[in-house]
Each structure stands twice: as structure tokens, then as C-alpha cells.
């Protein structure tokens, strides 16, 4: 049996779970089937029907009176209990914040290896897998052993399509044996900032700046252009480190990954740790003095020159041509 941990927040599915199920189905079809999934928390029960098109024969539902909101160690203990009862060949979770940490807790409890952010698996006695390193700039091929094999699936790599045949998705509730320690760490509150700005991950256009922007004032110009285009402002780690923009704007391996329709990279060289954050953009326009900069050679379009001359001229031209500008 192949077991997939479904990530949800108080009953709302994290869609990365569906990408995970794509790989889980592959492993099940290759001979380790059937496919089962685990939902932790009574409030997730409604998801069972939504998951049926993705192929699970059984949906295990871990219910416990003390399990009200997300608690990583408790989720892991539910997973460990289910593993003991059902003896799956492999357990998969999405490589999201929650999926990764629950899997690591389970791996620690079982004293088994865990492979994070896998993109492909060849099943066998040991799994030969491909996993992501350096936030996506490098791949590693590795052997994974263990009974069961524990792995997470790299986000945004695999499709999230339904199964060729829906699963029966028979719901099987169980009560995990949770200790007080398992429930010590849990979400006790949520804070939602009142923001009116377009969010970086949802913006259609991101106007981004790096060392070439030179100052916080330079970022005001980027902000002006972003506002005109209804987009958001991004930055490189150099810009963040200088305090020209906040870390919340940082694009890249240790910042945010984005996939806008257009990414305008101003004065950014295109280091690989930055590139992994913006390569999902449909089109990239680089503005750079250096025609050899990797951001320029990898972009869809480029303008060679000083951003301090080009951006103000662009802003003026947009104001001129735009109706009611």
C-alpha cells in the first residue's frame, strides 16, 4: 500500500497535496498499490469526497477530541499510528511547510531516513529517486531505503490532474494515541495583516530590483511603475540586505517563488538562487547595463542600459499613452 498525507488547513485542501498524489498513484500503479490517504482532524472529513477523483481506495480519517487546530507532532503521531497498523511500502507528503515538518517528525519517531522534495521515483527494493537541492538549482539522484520509505514531493513540479479512474475513497476513521507532548506545539492564533497592496505571489506583473537600483529611493521608482501596471514590487537578496526593500519582497531560494505573466528584472544579475524564484514567470524583461548578465541571456526580452534613465522614461511614456493617464 502507498500512503499519502493530505495537507489541509481547517478543512481547506492545500493543492500541493494533489501534485503529491500524482507521484503516489505512479508508485501504487507500479506494484506497491493500492493508494490510501490520511486526513488528520475531524474538520477534514468533508475533503474525502473531493479526493475520490484522485484515486484513493481508502481515506483514513484521524479524529481526536484534542485535535482542533494544526499540531505538527500530533499529525506525525497519527501518521505513525497508521503506518504501524497498515504497513505501507511508502509514505508521501507534499513538500510544503506542513508536509515537510510532519514527515520529518514521523521520520524522527520511526528512526527512518526521509527524502525531501522528490521529483521522480523509480520503485524497487530501494527507491532510486531524484530530489531537488539548492531550492531547485541542482538535482540529486539518491537511493532511499526504509520500511516504509518516507518522502516529500517537490512543489510545482508535477501535474495535479485527477486519476484515470476515481477511487472508492472509503472513509475509515481512527483515533490516534496522542500524548500531551504531541499537542504542546499547535496553532494558538492567527494574524491576518490588513494589506491593500497586490500580493507578490498573485501579481500578474512583478517589477523587481537588485544592486543596480542603488538605493531605497530607487525602489520608489520601481513602486511607481508597479502601481501603474497594477503589479507588485520584488527585490534581490542584495536589495533586501541593504534594506532597500523588505524581505517580504525578496524573490528566490530563501525568499518567495513567483510565476507572474511578466517579471521585470531591473539591475539584477540573475544568480541561480534568484533565478529559481522567478523562472516560473511566463515572460521576463531584463533591464541591465550588462548584455552578458545571466538575467539578460535567460530573459525573454531585454533592454540594455541604465535603469535610472530607462524607468523614468517608461513611466512618463505610460502616463502619456494611457487613456486618462
Amino acid at each position, binding site marked *: 500500500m502507498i500512503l499519502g498525507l493530505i495537507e489541509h488547513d481547517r478543512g481547506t485542501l492545500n493543492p500541493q497535496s494533489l501534485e503529491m498524489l500524482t507521484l503516489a498513484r505512479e508508485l501504487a500503479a507500479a506494484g506497491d498499490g493500492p493508494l490510501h490517504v490520511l486526513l488528520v482532524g475531524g474538520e477534514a472529513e468533508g475533503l474525502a469526497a473531493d479526493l475520490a477523483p484522485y484515486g484513493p481506495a481508502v481515506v483514513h480519517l484521524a479524529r481526536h477530541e484534542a485535535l482542533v487546530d*494544526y499540531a*505538527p*507532532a500530533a499529525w506525525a503521531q497519527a501518521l505513525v499510528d497508521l503506518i504501524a497498523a497498515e504497513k505501507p511500502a511508502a509514505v508521501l507528503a507534499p513538500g510544503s*511547510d506542513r508536509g*515537510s*515538518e510532519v514527515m*520529518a*517528525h514521523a521520520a*524522527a519517531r520511526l528512526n*527512518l*531516513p*526521509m527524502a*525531501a522534495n522528490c521529483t521522480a521515483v523509480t520503485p524497487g527494493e530501494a527507491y*532510486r529517486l*531524484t530530489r531537488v*537541492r*539548492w531550492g531547485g*538549482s*541542482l*538535482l*540529486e*539522484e*539518491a*537511493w532511499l*531505503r526504509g520500511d516504509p520509505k518516507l518522502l516529500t514531493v517537490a512543489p510545482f513540479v508535477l501535474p495535479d490532474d485527477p486519476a484515470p479512474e476515481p477511487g472508492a475513497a472509503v472513509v475509515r476513521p481512527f483515533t490516534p494515541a496522542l500524548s500531551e*507532548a504531541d499537542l*504542546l*506545539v499547535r*496553532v*494558538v492564533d*492567527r*494574524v491576518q495583516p490588513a494589506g491593500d497592496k497586490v500580493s507578490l505571489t498573485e501579481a500578474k506583473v512583478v517589477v523587481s530590483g537588485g544592486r543596480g537600483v542603488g538605493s531605497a529611493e530607487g525602489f520608489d521608482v520601481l513602486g511607481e511603475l508597479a502601481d501603474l*501596471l*497594477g*503589479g507588485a514590487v520584488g527585490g534581490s537578496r542584495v536589495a533586501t540586505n541593504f534594506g532597500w526593500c523588505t*524581505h*517580504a519582497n525578496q524573490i528566490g531560494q*530563501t*525568499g518567495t517563488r513567483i510565476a507572474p*505573466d*511578466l517579471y521585470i528584472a531591473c539591475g539584477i*544579475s540573475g544568480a*541561480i538562487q534568484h*533565478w529559481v524564484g522567478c523562472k516560473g514567470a511566463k*515572460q521576463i*524583461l531584463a533591464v541591465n547595463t550588462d548584455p552578458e548578465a545571466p538575467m539578460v541571456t*535567460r*530573459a*525573454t*526580452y*531585454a*533592454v*540594455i*542600459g*541604465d535603469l535610472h534613465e*530607462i524607468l523614468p522614461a*517608461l513611466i512618463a*511614456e*505610460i502616463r502619456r*499613452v494611457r487613456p486618462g493617464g
Partner: protein
Amino acid sequence: MKILVCLKRVPTTGARILLTADEQEIDTRNLGFAMSPHEECAVEAGVQLIEQHGGSLTVLTLGPEEAVEQLRYALAMGADDAILLAASGDVDPMATAGAITAAIRERGGGENPFDLLLFGNEAADSGGYQVGIRVAHALGLPCVTGVKRLDVTADGLEVRREAGTGWEVYRVPLPAVITIREGINLPRYPSVPGRLRAKKKPVETVEPHLVGGGPEKIRLVNPPEQDHAVQILGQGPAAVPRIVELLQELRLL
């Protein structure tokens, strides 16, 4: 407060990663090295905590002899002493966690002597997403991962992590393990006096006992790159009309 930060030395790669001929490592001959970014923020968080609440900060790395450079850097930022677990090559996360746990116990005569153990959410190079959690489990400590805000309260810590566009709040008693994400703070640059003081601070070198578990690396591979040609719209402000055309084509204007 007695604090430990575990940090990893990683190469600062440029626009392309070159591999060694045997595909086992990154070719670092022309590269510099740094602390993995999440951990640099963890050191900064640790320094701020002892500045505000008193106590001491120990930094630890498992890596080659040269990793003493990153320990010195952390000492220059304000840590008090350092532990180097000398090991070469890629050490898997289970072996790393085991060696770190043993070193922590060794420090406390068999028990964990620290109130707070800080890790990065994931190491920048290998991205295992697990060492902090494994150490927490081995020591029987609570653990919150991915933390981008940390406040000391009367009975422990209140920490936050990002969730969608908002924050999740967690409260934990001490001792605890917290894994940090870049963005929690802006790490300081060590001052010149800081660097001088760092030279005199103690660094203890230990030969760790490494018990591996996997995953077992076969080889590293560069992701395939689509070859394509960039379309140059022009030079300088003269290109502005072409940019506007493009924006109109993409229906952004």
C-alpha cells in the same frame, strides 16, 4: 538564557553550478563560502536575545576544518564560543542530527544544557528539512519550524510563521527547538572590534561519531536548461516605445 545555533557552511554559487568530474560535489575551486542564509538569521536572533535577556550563545557546525571561518564569523557577530564537529563530504541528515545531539549532551554532561536551540528551516545546499526536528525528538523537546518572528514571554516563547498572506502563532515553553527562516531579521555585519574579539574566543573541535541512514547520494545533476535566444528590445531610453508595445501586447496596459 543559554542558546545554541547550529549552522552549515555552504558555497556561494554564481549563475551556474559547476560539478566535479565524479558528479559527487559542487566544484568549489573558484567559489567563496558563507553560512547558509537561514542560519545567519538564526545567529542574529540568538545574539539579539542574549543582548536583551543576558546569557550565552554557542554556535556549532559539522563540516570540514575550513568551516571554522563560518564559526569565527558567528563569533564576530556576537556568539561566545563555538564547537566544530570535524567531518568531510556530504553527511546525511540522520548522521548530522545524531552527531549534533551527541555534542549537545556532551556539553551538558549527558543532558541538554541549552534553553533554546536554533536551527535553519533547511540547509541551503542539501535542503533536507529535518535536522532540527530530529534533534528535538532525540532530546524530547518541542519544536516549531519556519519561524519568522520570535518573542520572549513570561512562560517561554511566542513565535510566528507565515501561512498564506497571514501568520500562524505558536506558544512554546523552554527548552525548545526553533527553526528559523531568513527574513526574521537583517543579520548584522561583524564590526572590526567584533572580528578581533572573535579571534580569541574558544573553538572546541570534536571528532563526531557518524551513523548514516540516508538518503544515499548517487550523483548530482544540473537541471536541464532550455536553450533560447533573448530578444533585445533596444538600448537605453530609446527602447521605451518597444517596452510600451510589449506591455500592450501582454494586456498589461
